[in-house]
Every structure is written in structure tokens, then in C-alpha cells.
């Protein structure tokens, strides 16, 4: 299996790892993700848009009280892609060929 070029970028890999740890049924509010990952708003938005476009994330708009919120969650496709990518990285480190 080849490396996933989209997840290969370190920040996107970190975002995927964060969401994968929480599971595919989890949803994280955009500002929390921003704070926890220490990214800028523009940077995070750009990475999320690319991952959403690939079907790896779902981004939903909603309200908490009267405040608009954006929720981000990992899809099953995203989880599978992340796990496969990490497996490839480990395989490379261990010096095994697929």
C-alpha cells in the first residue's frame, strides 16, 4: 500500500491522529481543535477543507445556545486512511517491504 499524500503532511497527520484518538463518533468544536493543536485559524481551516474534500472528515455547522459553532469529526474512510498510513510509516521504520 502507498503512502497517503494528503495525510502525509505533518499538520494534517496530527489533526487526523487527534481525531482518530477520539473515535469516529466524536465531534470536536473548531475553536477547541484550534487551541489544542496550537494552529492559526486560517491554517486549520485550510487543512480541514482539504481533508473534508477527500471525505476523511465531516464538518458540520450548528448552534450551542445562540452561538454558531463548527463541529469536526473523523469519518470511517478517514480513520481507515489514517491507520493504513501509520501502518506504512511503521513498516518503513521496521524495514519491511509490503
Amino acid at each position, binding site marked *: 500500500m502507498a503512502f497517503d499524500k494528503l495525510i502525509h503532511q505533518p499538520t494534517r497527520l496530527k489533526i487526523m491522529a487527534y481525531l482518530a484518538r477520539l473515535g469516529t463518533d466524536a465531534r470536536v468544536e473548531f475553536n477547541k481543535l484550534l487551541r489544542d493543536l496550537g494552529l492559526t485559524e486560517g491554517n486549520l481551516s485550510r487543512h480541514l477543507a482539504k481533508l473534508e474534500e477527500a471525505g476523511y472528515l465531516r464538518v458540520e455547522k450548528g448552534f450551542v445556545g445562540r452561538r454558531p459553532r463548527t463541529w469536526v469529526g473523523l469519518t470511517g474512510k478517514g480513520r481507515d486512511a489514517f491507520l493504513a498510513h501509520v501502518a506504512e510509516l511503521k513498516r518503513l*521504520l521496521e524495514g519491511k517491504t509490503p
Partner: protein
Amino acid sequence: MSREEAKNLLYAAQEGAALASRAQGPFLSGLLAVWGAVYALGYGLFPDSGGAWALLIVAGFALSFYLGGREARHLRTGAGRMLALLWSAFGLDLFALMLAGEGLGSGRSLAINLLVALAWMGSGVVLERSGILLAGALFALVNALVFALFPALYFPVLAGAGLLALSFGLFWRTRGLR
């Protein structure tokens, strides 16, 4: 790709996962502080007062669900929903036990604390956090040992454990431990 690059990428993935684990820290540390305070006050000051215990438990659950609600404004997980269900059921059982008689006799207290330990262990399994699982097991062990070997010290030890939990919860909350 070089092995060095793969190593750095794996490190980035581990860092992302660690940040997600820490994301629930403020909620869990808040819970620990709240229930530490309930135990310290209940066993330290009002061990035999049914009314005081009922008030403390209601306050403890109200604060816990407030913290859970606040957490859900930023992070919603299946594990969180399972925890809410687990602790709601436990809270109802506990309150029914409290209504059934005056105060917490040490035998009934032991039974309740073993159930509390079980609920913490269940929470550790749901959240996949071995620290919480071990803390629940340790709490059960300390309860059983002190009750069996030093019954006169049972309430003071629980009050001390409450103070310890309160201190650790506040430390965790301010220092942001994993």
C-alpha cells in the same frame, strides 16, 4: 521517504493522539475535585448525617453534570454519552440508598464505595485510560483493607482520600496533566 522522516511523522501522529487524550483533562480533573470535596466534607464533618450527605450528593451530581454539559459544548464523544448514562444510573441508585436510611453506617458506606470504585473502573474502560481504571481498583482495595483491619479509621481515611483527590484534581486542572 527516509526512515528519519517516517520517524518524525510517527512522532507527529503520537503527539496528536496525546493532545486528544489531554483534551478531556479539564473535565476529568473537575470531577475529581468535586467528588474529593464531597468525600472530604461528608466523611470529615458529617459522617452520620443523612441530610448533609443527601445534600452533598445532590450537589456533587449537579456539579458533575454541569461540568459534563460544559464539556459537551466543545467535545462530544460516544464515550462521554456512555459515561453520562453510567453515572446517571449510579447516581439514582446512590440517592435511593441514601433515602432508605439515616446517614452512612460504615457497612453501607463500604458497599456504596465499592460501587463507586466499580463505576470509576468502568469509566476508565470506557475512556481507555488505565490511570482511572487503576485508581478505581486502588480505591476498592483501600476501602476493603481499612474497613477490615482498622474499622475505627474508616471514615477519617475516606475523608483523607477525599482531600487527596481534591488536591490532585485541582493540581491536574491547573497544571494540565495527561
